[in-house]
């Protein structure tokens, strides 16, 4: 009974981190579900785009797990990779659209997802750095 109501909890998965994990979970689900569907139904149409969707899905899943279980180094590594991914793929889709005949989460800097894929890694990295004790 002595436990106060608002005892501050530490760790990546508490406080604002709760929301960060929720957003990463949504992207883990949508990116991996999208790639599974694309690979299952039309793998030969745009193999690079679909393989990339699958890679993005795996990265989001790893980042979600890392954040939710307070694995700081894994979180930093996967989110950095995510940032690199959205920047490189975003740039490539602008420079040469023929490389990616079908869209991925990271195409055109994530325009299909309201640019959340571009903003999310910055929020994620900021959170990993800020919540360090």
């Amino acid at each position: 009974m002595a436990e106060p109501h608002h005892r501050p909890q530490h760790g990546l998965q508490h406080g604002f981190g709760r929301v960060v994990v929720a957003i990463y979970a949504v992207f883990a689900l949508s990116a991996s579900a999208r790639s599974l569907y694309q690979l299952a139904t039309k793998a030969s149409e745009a193999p690079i785009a679909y393989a990339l969707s699958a890679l993005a899905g795996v990265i989001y899943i790893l980042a979600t797990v890392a954040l939710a279980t307070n694995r700081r180094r894994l979180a930093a590594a996967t989110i950095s990779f995510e940032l690199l991914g959205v920047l490189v793929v975003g740039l490539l889709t602008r420079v040469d659209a023929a490389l990616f005949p079908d869209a991925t989460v990271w195409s055109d800097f994530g325009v299909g997802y309201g640019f959340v894929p571009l903003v999310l890694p910055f929020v994620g990295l900021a959170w990993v750095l800020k919540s360090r004790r």
Partner: protein
Amino acid sequence: MIDTTAYAVFGLATAVAVWAAWKTIRHTRISDGMFYAISAVEIGTLLLLVVGIAGLSATKRDVEGTLLVSYLATLVLVPPITLVWGVAEKSRWGTGVVLIGMWTVAIMAIRVLQVWHG
């Protein structure tokens, strides 16, 4: 029928998302009222699942059935997961989680309609 139900789910989820955003700004945790509101959204998604599968089996149009059912089935899971993850957080960010979850439901309801109409 699918349109009406999907728009109802979209409207309800959007309303709860706006409410949750307000509560997050006001530093408020998930209340009993919000629990019932999320439950109402869940009932909506269950209804959409039933109506969607019924519509899919009745239509003669060429609809991407697997995609539609995956969306409908996933949609049913979002409110309970939102609740479990959000309730455990005893700060304002619990309602922040509700905002993300309900926003996701709203977007997915629209995606259901896009898939349904091809």
